[in-house]
Structure formats: structure tokens, C-alpha cells
């Protein structure tokens, strides 16, 4: 009896990796999915912190894809290892802080390690030549194969016919004529194939699947690094850059003001890690203070927090300040006027 060939597929939750996986499953290969969590992944749940988005489904698309395909999915936490990719990208950044090519190389390398540890035979990605300006180009395809170490065990079913034959094709594990020659940014071939496979409900994230491609998020990350004088970060930093208004009056501190109840509830979990404050005399949002504020800075922060509460028109409001141990004090301040807050403060 011949050995069952097994492949591991990088599942992002989008349509391309779903189709690529299905194309290989159709050839009788046993496929399991792998999904890497960098901390910067765009997830419905992160958006779901905010109340206004609660009507959106809260599903995780990679899990949904795996369940639709009927395959196992292994979700791997690579937050720590990913820091080096983000901080020192060999191939540089894209339009924002997105190190897409280095990221792809890293993920394929991790998939290769998983393949070897679990005795699988090859790796599948949903890459399409010309689909993405940084990581999915004719010139970058061989770079990803070589630098990841996957070499000819990396199969891109959706554009395989535009590329040299891989080991699984040469060995006859899969048939090249049942793979595809998609290229470019157009989505019509993918949508036609989805229709052929009977996939009617699939995710098509317009801006990719990573917060690092987002201009606003990238600016906040750069601001954080500049203020700290180092590119170090942890998961709490990554998460908090996704929520609240970020207002930086000077390099010593930043005020993160919750915009809605959902964000405030999420930020409650950080009250033991950050100085925090909220308006005591009027209804108002929770704010976290990041950095090392002086007493004068705290006064400025309290005025900012008061600005976003219902006492914004009052002559004076009381703001409760809590330290990391939960000790409380009260500041009486005049809410900051909108004309007192320069645009540059808003990160």
C-alpha cells in the first residue's frame, strides 16, 4: 500500500488559501491547516471590542475555513519570535510598517519546521503571482522558497503553472494539470473557482489580514517606539494600539481614552498595569496613562479625560486617578478645550 501523502497548508482565513487547500485535497492528499498568530492579525473579535461593530459576525475566519474544508487547524502563537521579523526586516517594509516579504519567509519557514516535526511531505500556500505588491511577485516567489528553506516542497496551487515544477509534482504526488495559472490582482478566477467548489460564503478582507498594513495603526506603533527610544514591545502594547483614542501631549506619556463601553470594558483589564483615570463628578470614559508622567503631566491628562466626559462644558470637574496598586486620588481640573489640543497630539 502506498504512503498517504500529507501536506500542511497556511490558512489565513481568506479565499485564496481556502481554494489552494481545496485544490490539493481534490487530488487525494491529506491536508491539515496551520495558522500563525503574530499579535497583529486582523480579527473580527478585535473589532468586536467596539460596540458599533457588534452586528458583525464574530467568527474566526481561519477556523471557519478549516471547518468548511473538513480539515484540522493548528493555531500557533509566534508573537515572541515575530518581533525580530518586525523590528529587523531584511527586505524592508511596505507602504506602512508591514514587513510582508520577511513575514512570508518566516511563516513558510515555521510551516517547514512543523512539516518536518509532524512527518508531512509538503507545504501549501494560497499565493498568487502579482496579487500583492510586496510579497506576491514573480521575483519574490523564489526568494520565499529559498530563504524559508522549503525550496521545492513549497506548492502554490493557484499559480503553480506559472512556476517551475515542485517536488510533489515531479514525484507524481500531485498533478500539475490540475493546478492553476492565476496571476495579477484580479479576483475573477478565484471567484469562478470558488463557485466551482461550491463556496458561496467566504472572507475577502480588503486591506489584507494584518494591522501592520494599516496606516493609522503603523503610526501608533512608530510613536510608541519613538517615545520609548526602543523598538521593544509586548502583547499588551499590540492590543492597546487597537483600541481607544491615543493622545500624546509629550514624549513622557500618552493618554488612551476609551471611545465606547466595549473598549472601556476591555481596558478595565489593564487597570493593574497602567495608571488610569476617569471623571468622578460626571459620566465619562476610562483612560489609561502610558509612560512616566510628572505631576504636571497628570494634570494635563486629567483635563484631556474630562474633555471626553459629560462635564466637558463645566468650569471644573473631579477626576479620579488610580495607580497600579489601586490607590486613588482626586484632581480638580478644567476640561481641556478642543482648541487647546493640537492636532499633533492625536497619534
Amino acid at each position: 500500500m502506498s504512503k498517504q501523502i500529507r501536506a500542511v497548508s497556511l490558512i489565513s482565513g481568506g479565499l485564496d488559501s481556502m481554494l489552494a487547500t481545496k485544490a490539493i485535497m481534490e487530488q487525494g492528499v491529506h491536508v491539515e491547516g496551520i495558522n500563525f498568530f503574530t499579535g497583529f492579525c486582523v480579527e473580527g473579535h478585535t473589532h468586536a471590542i467596539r460596540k458599533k461593530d457588534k452586528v458583525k459576525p464574530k467568527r474566526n475566519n481561519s477556523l471557519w475555513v478549516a471547518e468548511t474544508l473538513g480539515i484540522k487547524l493548528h493555531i500557533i502563537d509566534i508573537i515572541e519570535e515575530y518581533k525580530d521579523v518586525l523590528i529587523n526586516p531584511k527586505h524592508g517594509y511596505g507602504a506602512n510598517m508591514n514587513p510582508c516579504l520577511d513575514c512570508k519567509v518566516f511563516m513558510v519557514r515555521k510551516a517547514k519546521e512543523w512539516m518536518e516535526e509532524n512527518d508531512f511531505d509538503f507545504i501549501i500556500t494560497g499565493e498568487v503571482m502579482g496579487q500583492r505588491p510586496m510579497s506576491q511577485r514573480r521575483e519574490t516567489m523564489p526568494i520565499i522558497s529559498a530563504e524559508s528553506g522549503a525550496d521545492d516542497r513549497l506548492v502554490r496551487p493557484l499559480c503553480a503553472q506559472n512556476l517551475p515544477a515542485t517536488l510533489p509534482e515531479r514525484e507524481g504526488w500531485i498533478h500539475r494539470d490540475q493546478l492553476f495559472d492565476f496571476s495579477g490582482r484580479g479576483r475573477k478566477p478565484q471567484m469562478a473557482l470558488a463557485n466551482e467548489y461550491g463556496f458561496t460564503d467566504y472572507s475577502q478582507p480588503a486591506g489584507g489580514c494584518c494591522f501592520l498594513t494599516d496606516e493609522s495603526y503603523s503610526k501608533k506603533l512608530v510613536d510608541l517606539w519613538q517615545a520609548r527610544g526602543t523598538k521593544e514591545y509586548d502583547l499588551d502594547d499590540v492590543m492597546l494600539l487597537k483600541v481607544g483614542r491615543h493622545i500624546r501631549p509629550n514624549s513622557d506619556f500618552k493618554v488612551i481614552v476609551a471611545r465606547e463601553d466595549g473598549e472601556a470594558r476591555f481596558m478595565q483589564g489593564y487597570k493593574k498595569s497602567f495608571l488610569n483615570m476617569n471623571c468622578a463628578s460626571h459620566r465619562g470614559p476610562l483612560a489609561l496613562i502610558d509612560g512616566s508622567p510628572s505631576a504636571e503631566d497628570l494634570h494635563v491628562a486629567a483635563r484631556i479625560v474630562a474633555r471626553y466626559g459629560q462635564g466637558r462644558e463645566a468650569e471644573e470637574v473631579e477626576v479620579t486617578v488610580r495607580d497600579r496598586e489601586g490607590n486613588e486620588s482626586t484632581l480638580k481640573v478644567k476640561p481641556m478645550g478642543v482648541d487647546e489640543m493640537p492636532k499633533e497630539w492625536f497619534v
Partner: protein
Amino acid sequence: MSTYQLDAKRLLCPLPVIRTQDKIKELQIGDILTVTCTDPGVMQDIPAWSRINGHKVLKTESGEYEFVITIEVGE
């Protein structure tokens, strides 16, 4: 059969799923794991992850701020 607790509060998806996955790797078939979370998305994701990986969700409980899922470890 043994019972275990996992605190995945304050974590956003997919971290509660990852923590559940990693904990279950340490357990035996038939063991029971109860996971407590604060991200409402786990009510979809942990059952989905359990279904595709052969584990059985015995119970889900939704509170105002906490969501508790009890899983029996499968093969």
C-alpha cells in the same frame, strides 16, 4: 478522567483558542477542561476549534462579562 481549569480572561481571539489547544495537548482522552474567557467571540471559536479537532463541548455558559466553556478531550 480528571478535570482541569484554564483562565483565558482578558485574552482576545485567537489567544483563548491557542491556550485551550495547548492545554488540551497535555491532557488525556476523556479529561474535562473548563475554560473561562472574557472575549465573547470564544463562544463561536472554541466550539469550532473543538469540532474540527475531535473534542466535545459539554457546556457553554454566557455571563455579562465572562464566558465559560467545558470541553471533553477527544482522540
